[in-house]
């Protein structure tokens, strides 16, 4: 298939080797500080995970983070895309504004939020204080019950634009005569939404779910800059765990194994989305 060749070439060249390489690593017990002792351990790196308490904690954290943020993204993006699909005066302005969070590099985004959430001089505290919602500055990121949701908020804020665009694109593709048919069939605004709009948005939703799930499960930057997994292990998500294992502990083998576990989960989820939201990708 000549049309696929360029993509395949790029992926083969750049993506396939890394994937196989880390798969290969995951079968060895590699600790960089012991360059001379790297035994082939077959699946031990994987089986070890079952007994690793922190690993399961991180899985739980990841699940919470992903579920919260992906559902928030999907809902907000749905609402915003429906809004932007309307015809009104400032539509163009609004749809440009909505892209702003996307345009801020992750690093700047994380720093911005860190600074907004700060318990000493943060803008959020300042705002709540001035509005008299709180009488003294609150602890945000340092509160282990709030941390993950606050990080999710920063993540959602950043990811909504892409999701919105993806949904908007599929909204725009709906042929208007379907609405005409539905109106004649007696469908109210709501039924038209349910029976015409939503099914037509399936492709967009599929993209959003796959992409955002992937991003949420793997998300790293915010955790790195905002909390480094803290306080305690409150934001110790799987991607952070992998990072620590790989770069702090220099255990490339088990890091790769965990990456593979995460990859399989992501793949399985994507597969489920593909199966449920569309027969084809």
């Amino acid at each position, binding site marked *: 298939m000549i049309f696929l060749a360029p993509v395949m070439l790029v992926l083969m060249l750049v993506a396939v080797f890394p994937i196989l390489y880390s798969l290969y690593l995951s079968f060895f017990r590699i600790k960089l500080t012991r360059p001379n002792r790297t035994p082939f351990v077959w699946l031990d790196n994987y089986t070890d995970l079952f007994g690793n308490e922190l690993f399961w904690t991180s899985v739980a954290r990841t699940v919470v983070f992903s579920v919260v943020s992906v559902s928030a993204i999907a809902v907000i993006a749905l609402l915003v895309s429906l809004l932007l699909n309307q015809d009104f005066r400032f539509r163009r302005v609004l749809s440009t504004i909505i892209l702003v969070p996307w345009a801020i590099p992750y690093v700047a985004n994380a720093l911005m939020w860190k600074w907004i959430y*700060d318990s000493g*001089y943060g803008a959020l505290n300042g705002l709540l204080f001035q509005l008299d919602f709180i009488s003294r500055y609150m602890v945000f990121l340092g509160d282990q019950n709030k941390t993950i949701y606050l990080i999710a908020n920063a993540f959602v804020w950043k990811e909504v634009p892409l999701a919105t665009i993806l949904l908007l694109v599929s909204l725009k593709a709906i042929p208007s005569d379907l609405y005409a048919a539905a109106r004649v069939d007696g469908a109210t605004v709501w039924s038209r939404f349910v029976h015409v709009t939503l099914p037509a948005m399936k492709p967009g939703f599929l993209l959003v779910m796959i992409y955002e799930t992937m991003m949420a499960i793997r998300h790293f930057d915010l955790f790195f800059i905002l909390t480094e997994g803290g306080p305690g292990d409150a934001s110790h998500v799987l991607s952070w765990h992998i990072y620590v294992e790989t770069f*702090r502990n220099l255990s490339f083998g088990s890091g790769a194994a965990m990456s593979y576990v995460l990859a399989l989960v992501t793949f399985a989820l994507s597969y489920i989305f593909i199966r449920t939201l569309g027969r084809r990708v």
Partner: protein
Amino acid sequence: QGASDLTMHTWSAAVDTVQSHLNAFTASSGINVNYGNSPWAQYREGMVTKFVGGAPLDMMWVSDAWLPEWVEAGWIAPVDGFKNLTQYNSEAEEFCNDSMTYNGRQYGLTYYTDYMAFLYDEEKVKAAGFDAPPTTWDEVVEQSLVMKEKGISDYPMMLAMAQESWLIEFMSTLVFSHGGRFIDENGMSSMTSEKDGAMEALQWVVDAVSKHGIVSPACVETGELSGLKAFASGNHAFAMVAKYRLRMLNDPEQSQVAGNVQQTLMPKGGNGAHNTVGWMRFHGMSSQAAADPIRAEATAKLIEWFGGKSDGAYKFQKLLFLDIGAGFGVKPLFDDPEIKAAYNAYGDVEVIKAQQSLAMQKDVVTPWFGEWNETNGTAWQSAILGNTDVASAIAKSSDAWDELKEDY
């Protein structure tokens, strides 16, 4: 990129200063240097990748905490074979020489060194009715409670206990000033020891947060930078930060408490002295460079240019101090009039010197430091958050240490 070019990588600090000094090096030696830098926060993982990936690299900056790890991994090479480098050891701070030595070999020349200082806001202390800063941790509590009561500050003591690379320095300071240690001479954990372990220090922090309320519960999210900012915004009366921050805190452009910030000796705990922790960063040579005699020679020259004398003077160290306030590891510079003048502009040289002599090396720097550090940080945070009691937090950390050491 000529074949004889050297590659040097640093974190993105004092970039212009480094570049100017490098240009002078090229002018004087004729050796070209490719100078790259990357952000401090991600420097270590960047270097790990470069080492593993075999990127061309000759000289780089190394943090004392990474030394054992990098040596064990075979990434950096000792430099004590180069006479032109060892000649400076006599004029260097002993603390620095020790910190660059692993298994009896020396791995570089000092880039900068500093220690954790105890700073206070003179105005607030006075307002609270005290005429001297605290000298013990109990006094810190005492003064703080008064300030709290008088509404001078909600959380008079600023402690930055967030998970980040600084955390170990803060913890070490607390432990050392309480007279404790993390490990004993055999390298086994001694943290759990009631008297000279880490228990007392952590207990102080836990009490400060939850019993006295003089340290914000947000300390677990506060990093060194945010803490510094909070202190600069006038939220706190006491702070534990790197000594070189003193200058910034007294700069009206950046600080709302400029002019009021003073340094005093680190408060001591029941069994402690006024000890603090010191750290240093150094210029190191990659094993890659060391393997090739010609390149090794050139790299040694480059290290000398930065870490030793260039054109007969400790030029780089001086520039660095004047530009960014970074402490130097070469004693003679203290006598430099320009430096004296600069120090006195914002601090008390005597206190600075006195505290410096009480700075101790981190005792946990081992090849498994990185791995343990993670567990330890989480354990301390759990105790501060009230998820576990002090004893079991320390025990967890202690067990992790012994296990890792065993494993090694």
